[in-house]
């Protein structure tokens, strides 16, 4: 019994280059570990067996930005942390995306003071904002699926900067 019997007669699938590449990018979106506060706990929850982010090919949280495509900023970013965040972002290879998880990363949240960045979009370009304080794992997964949609709609001209 060979592999051709298992595969069946699938024939040929035609698609565009754009769609094929975008599909490949969404199905292996490796996030960089960037848990800064309580949102990180929900991010860990999204990884566990109940919510299981590995369904989307995201089971690998990379500790190095050089191996990651997506930066999930989970938590408030202080002014002292902002240069570090930017540096990690600059070290990520293209293509790369940023997801601001929770109110603090999106707009400063309850920390309207001198020490905390009022939204991480002052330092890095954000693709998807997830509301909630902290957002439940479903919220994070919804944000990731929204990002998948966004990537799926990218054109060839967007690939090259």
């Amino acid at each position, binding site marked *: 019994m060979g592999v051709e019997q298992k595969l069946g007669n699938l024939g040929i699938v035609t698609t565009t280059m754009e769609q094929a590449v975008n599909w490949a990018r969404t199905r292996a979106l490796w996030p960089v570990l960037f848990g800064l506060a309580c949102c990180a706990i929900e991010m860990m929850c999204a990884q566990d067996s109940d919510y299981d982010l590995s369904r989307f090919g995201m089971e690998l949280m990379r500790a190095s930005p050089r191996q990651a495509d997506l930066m999930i900023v989970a938590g408030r970013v202080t*002014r*002292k942390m902002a240069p570090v965040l930017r540096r990690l972002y600059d070290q990520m290879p293209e293509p790369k995306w940023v997801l601001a998880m929770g109110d603090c990363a999106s*707009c*400063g949240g309850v920390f*309207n*003071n*001198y*020490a*905390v960045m*009022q*939204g991480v*979009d*002052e*330092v*890095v*370009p954000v693709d998807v904002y997830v509301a909630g304080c902290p957002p439940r794992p479903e919220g994070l997964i919804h944000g990731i699926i929204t990002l998948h949609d966004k990537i799926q709609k990218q054109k060839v001209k967007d690939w090259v*900067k």
Partner: protein
Amino acid sequence: MDKNLETIVRAFEKEFGAQLDEHRGEIRLVVSPEHIVSACQLLHDQYDFKLLSALTAVDYWPQEDPRFHVIYELTSVSRNLRIGLRVPVPGIQPTLPTVTGVYGNANWRERELWDMFGIHIEGHPDLRRILMPRDWEGHPLRKDYPLGYEEPQFTFNLEEIDLRKPYAKE
């Protein structure tokens, strides 16, 4: 008051003219800035207060005139005693002598005092900011430091604030 503490308080009243401030069994002695090093030295050497458990400050602006109160919390582990020293420091060019010669861990705490309150510590070996970024201006825990950083966005002013928000382009 504890017998052991009472002898210390009496000695301090005689030696440094310290004022006693007792609140719910906690003993505080108000000492003037020029006496603080010798007061710490005396407590450390003679009364066995080997641990500086806290060094912090309070800003009483604008209610009180010596604006800052610097608080040294000392603990004697061997004798199970605690005592606090309060030093009033005026607001214009506040300076204090360092106690790093007596308590080594005062180094970082005094850096925090400088960072947060702008109290200059004379004779400190390495007086830099400790919590805030190096190029920070002002001292955030002072009462006259502006509290908020940014106006919150509501539906009525969302677009107006959005226009002047510094978004990162790339």
